[in-house]
């Protein structure tokens, strides 16, 4: 996410200018990036996230190299009388580096890697949709003010008044069926359902933040200057105002992303998530609770991974906010 701080329009000066000038022009995005790079905690968090995302993306390759598979059962890895993993700490062995699932003997590492794909896909997509809707609604409400702002504000209040978990649980059977009848069978429909539910109830928070920012930005004279040159509304909204909103948007995105991973886990835990046998972190956590007393390692790995990702995203979000705030001092 932080990388996009640099891609504000035209922020990268041509190399020729960099060479000529002793003091090269630096954009606010570049300054923020420099501050971020000095923040060791933020860089650790970012590298961690990049590694996890890479592991998820290359999960098929990695599992093939390690000769593990998320779906195939392994009778030899579990005891025949009760199905507990054989071996130390949840059945760790060369064949199964992070142990196996009790009962089935499915490989934990493979399931975590494949689960990351689903969990991260859902949370990334939901974050992008949330931010897009939130920014659009917030920027329009803040810029137009008047009855548009009033109507959008009341609509946001209504959306926020719904209890997310209850609505998600009660709508799940109907909506997943509807999505199935539209041709999205099985997990495709369920993943889409999770993304939709999370996004639909997530955008008003960002919309409110953005609206508040726009209310103050629209009074700055550069907006009036654009009007005095004859600029249309879309140019004012997306070329003049939007670039000044990157800081709150980025910060919000890095904060909601981990909460969406956790939310996906909760919903999978409650049974409206992805269908078995497809692994997700939430579903693995849900399964592991039953075995906690006899096989704590089965809970430990998905729990630790979820903790690491949430923690890394949160620290990165904090660091991005600090780096984008000009008051934190110059580099």
């Amino acid at each position, binding site marked *: 996410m932080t990388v996009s701080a640099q891609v504000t*329009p*035209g922020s990268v000066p041509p190399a020729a200018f960099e060479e000529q000038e002793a003091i090269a022009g630096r954009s606010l995005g570049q300054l923020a990036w420099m501050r971020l790079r000095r923040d060791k905690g933020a860089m650790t968090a970012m590298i961690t996230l990049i590694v996890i995302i890479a592991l998820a993306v290359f999960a098929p390759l990695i599992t093939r190299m390690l000769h593990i598979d998320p779906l195939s059962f392994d009778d030899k890895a579990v005891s025949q009388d009760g199905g507990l993993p054989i071996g130390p700490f949840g059945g760790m062995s060369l064949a199964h580096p992070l142990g196996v699932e009790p009962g089935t003997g499915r490989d934990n590492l493979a399931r975590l890697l494949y689960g990351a794909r689903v969990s991260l896909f859902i949370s990334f997509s939901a974050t992008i949709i949330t931010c897009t809707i939130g920014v659009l609604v917030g920027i329009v409400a803040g810029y137009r003010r008047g009855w548009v702002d009033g109507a959008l504000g009341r609509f946001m209040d209504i959306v926020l008044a719904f209890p997310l978990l209850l609505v998600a649980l009660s709508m799940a059977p109907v909506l997943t069926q509807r999505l199935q009848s539209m041709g999205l069978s099985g997990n495709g429909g369920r993943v889409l359902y999770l993304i939709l539910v999370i996004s639909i109830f997530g955008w008003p928070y960002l919309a409110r933040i953005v609206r508040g920012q726009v209310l103050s930005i629209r009074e700055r004279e550069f907006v009036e200057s654009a009007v005095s040159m*004859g600029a249309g509304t879309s140019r004012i909204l997306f070329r*003049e105002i939007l670039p000044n909103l990157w800081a709150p948007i980025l910060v919000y995105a890095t904060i909601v992303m981990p909460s969406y991973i956790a939310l996906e886990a909760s919903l999978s835990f409650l049974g409206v998530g992805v269908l078995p046998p497809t692994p997700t972190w939430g579903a693995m956590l849900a399964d592991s609770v039953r075995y906690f007393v006899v096989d704590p390692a089965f809970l430990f790995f998905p729990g630790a991974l979820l903790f690491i990702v949430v923690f890394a995203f949160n620290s990165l979000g904090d660091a991005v906010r600090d780096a984008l705030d000009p008051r934190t001092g110059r580099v």
Partner: protein
Amino acid sequence: MSEQEHATSTKARPAGSGAEPLLRVSHLQKHFPITTSGLLRRTIGSVKAVDGISLEVGRSETLGLVGESGCGKSTAGRTMLKLLEPTAGTIEFEGRDITRLNRAQMVPMRRRMQMIFQDPYSSLNPRHTVGSIIGAPYAIQGVNPPGGVKAAVQSLMERVGLNPEHYNRYPNEFSGGQRQRIGIARAIALHPKLIVCDEPVSALDVSIQAQVLNLLEDLQQEFEIAYLFIAHDLSVVRHISDRVAVMYLGHLAEVADADQIYLTPRHPYTLALLSAVPIPDPIKERKRKRILVQGDLPSPSNPPSGCVFRTRCWKAQDICAQQAPQLREMQPGHRVACHFPEEPKPVILSS
């Protein structure tokens, strides 16, 4: 940038003579409604920021618009550019009535009328490079300057005294004076005929003010631009203006040639305003007679009846409360809105 003073007398042009003026504003009003808060907004009054002003700006002329804070001079300038919708009155630009043109219809007109803003910090988008800020008029108006946008922008930067190599820098890397030059370059990019300057130097150091004023004068001669120069600093206005209009509480008090205003002010308010300017000569300064105006500026939502200045005027009589004085021509080119104007005798004030 030359620091030498441009003598004001040499640039005085006959005001309002000959051909039609570039901008003619008649009985212009801009009222802001005061509404109740809540879901159903009721209008319970209005702030009469501009309440019936009539003035003209000739081609390549500088009309200074002065008045104290809150008198409506900035609102007047913005309404004339249709950045605010006028409540009543007409605005004619180059002989065309633009009062009721909508936003889309105004777009082609905006090539010929521009604005320079007071605050060089908030008037430049901090997320755009200088190149894209100065090039914005081309992008918005769909104009393709000969030689390309970049070349045009860089020659503009050179013209206003900026280093064209700083094309890719951001506004936060420039000083206040340099930022104001960026704003000026943006305003002149499309060679407008009228620029409304809303206190363009009041946020700058005095040493920088002179440079920017001289730049504005040079550009005026080069591109034949007319300025509506809004300011509260009378010495700045005198330096640059051909004619001066004095505004008080949404009304014009006096309009005259710059020299006439300063040498023979006729409106009591103008007199009081000028008497507040210190004289840079200790002996004369000690003899200077200050006119202290009583009381506060009345609320523009509830202006006094008749003459708006009567509540603070030492010459006020009964008629001032009953009848609003019209802007009458006392001498050629010198219009005053007062029932009891001052005698046209020279007053000794600052040079």
